[in-house]
């Protein structure tokens, strides 16, 4: 019988990585629980949850995230579908465009937005509604690499061309092909992209800050300037939101739906 050799180096590097990641988190969590001198309490969290500005920021960011998700899905699903079906040779160009948000610093992007849309003919920063529209389009661009990749990977997992042609030969028009065949088979991919979008928008600071909107990011930054324990509590809440999103992705992609779609 072959006894498996223990790879001590792998364990060492694994442990180091875990320490590197979780130690600051533990430190933040511990600090956030020590607002009351000499005892562990949830006081910092109570203060945060009792602050109306937190809820305003949370509601605003959630709304913006949902709008971002809806617009991203409406833009990227048909675009990626068309690219797969009709112009696969455009992939390299599209891929470069989608990674632009990683290349261009957000601050440059925000200045560009403000300079372009704060003057005629498209003066969008005059009212809160048009500014929100501007900020959502900004979020769509920022979350583009995640949504594009999620949808693209989903499309690669299914035989887009054959499914489309099968649906067409059965009488479906383009809308019916997308609605009945393509989108239902991209459920997991779209959900994954949506959850990453959600996590990105919930923690976004620069756009909301420079466009002066009551999002969660600027609130966290403001709190960080004036308080000690509450920002730590907020950081943990933010982590929890991100991990919740990632957990949901894992849960969905391991469910029966995933097996049904991939056949594995």
């Amino acid at each position, binding site marked *: 019988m072959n006894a498996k050799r223990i790879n001590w180096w792998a364990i060492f590097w694994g442990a180091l990585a875990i320490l590197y990641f979780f130690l600051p988190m533990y430190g933040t969590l511990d600090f956030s629980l020590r607002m009351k001198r000499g005892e562990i309490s949830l006081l910092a969290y109570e203060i945060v949850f009792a602050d109306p500005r937190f809820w305003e920021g949370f509601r605003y960011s959630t709304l913006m995230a949902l709008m971002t998700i809806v617009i991203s899905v409406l833009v990227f699903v048909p675009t990626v579908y068309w690219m797969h079906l009709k112009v696969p040779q455009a992939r390299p160009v599209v891929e470069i465009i989608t990674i632009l948000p990683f290349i261009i610093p957000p601050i440059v992007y925000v200045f560009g937005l403000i300079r372009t849309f704060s003057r005629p003919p498209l003066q969008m920063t005059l009212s809160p509604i048009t500014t929100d529209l501007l900020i959502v389009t900004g979020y769509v661009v920022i979350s583009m690499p995640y949504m594009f990749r999620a949808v693209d990977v989903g499309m690669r997992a299914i035989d887009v061309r054959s499914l489309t*042609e099968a649906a067409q030969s*059965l*009488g479906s028009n383009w809308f019916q092909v997308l609605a009945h065949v393509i989108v239902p088979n991209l459920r997991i991919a779209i959900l994954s992209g949506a959850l990453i979008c959600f996590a990105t928008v919930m923690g976004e600071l620069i756009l909301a800050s420079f466009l002066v909107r009551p999002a969660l990011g600027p609130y966290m930054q403001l709190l960080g300037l004036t308080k000690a324990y509450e920002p730590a509590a907020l950081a943990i809440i933010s982590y929890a939101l991100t991990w919740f999103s990632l957990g949901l992705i894992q849960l969905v992609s391991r469910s029966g739906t995933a097996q049904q779609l991939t*056949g594995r």
Partner: protein
Amino acid sequence: MTHLELIHIHKSFGSAVAVEDFNLAVAQGEFISFLGPSGCGKTTTLRMIAGFELPTSGKIAINGADLTYTPPNKRNVGMVFQSYALFPNMTVAQNVGYGLKIAGKTKAEIEARVAEMLALIQMEKFAARYPYQLSGGQQQRVALARALAIRPQVLLLDEPLSALDAKIRLELRQEIRRIQRQLGITTIYVTHDQEEALSLSDRIVVMSQGRIEQIGTPTAIYNEPATEFVAQFVGHINLLPVEVITPAEGVVRLGGQVIRAGRFGHLNGRPVRLAVRPEELNPGFVEGLNNLSGRVESVTYLGSIVRIRVEVEGHLLALDMFNERRLKIPAVGDALQVHFPVEACWLL
């Protein structure tokens, strides 16, 4: 009466010609196979009938109605794909009923038709299963039922058995023919497998490099190939370069040996090849038939037949014999005479 008509169909992709002057008239209920090697244009032609490709020029008509530029979803043409293309998010019953749902049929109508189709493919018990829970053969059966459920004017099958293993392929081939005969549906079947085409079809269209080489019944395609390509592509054939002695009578010479061909055209001094199928050759000398002398080069067992290669005047001639127990197989290097009837050979 002509049901499906393809008139002077031409298709180019940039400078590459995929299909050239394709003409075909298909009768109602006929089973036609497009047979040819990869890249010969058979799938492109099928896709033009389905509406997934537009011809560069020419006309496609079903029941006299010009459908050349009609979008695929308006053609009422059923299609079965090599990769099955079942919708993974739908059950078997939902897959089969999808076309009817799109056509706006009532729930009762859909249920009745789905039950009828599942009975036709003998898969009533699988209605609630998802495609991933089925084998390849079962998935292709469902794909067939789905294509037939909408009562299409024409059924198109694009190499539907290519992804299946040999045994399932044979079973499903018979199943497809049974269902096609039962429903009397006009069918176009694309394949590169000559056995499939020969066993299934009423007529075969043999294609090469975008052009039709020959259209005919399986018997005509096999026994009377019109071109050297067809002769070589369908079945095995011996092609021997010969010298014409008497053009009017089809008498030719292979080295020092004289042969008379049963079929020949105008032999205007062009290079001529004698074509004869391996199964038409028999060992031994028979007076009044074509006889050739040679030496056994190799003996190969192919299960039910034994293929003997005989070297005749510097050329190899294949001879197929049934692998009977009493068969006396010559040894490699033995001198061997072979004979074949005049009607069994022709000049190309």
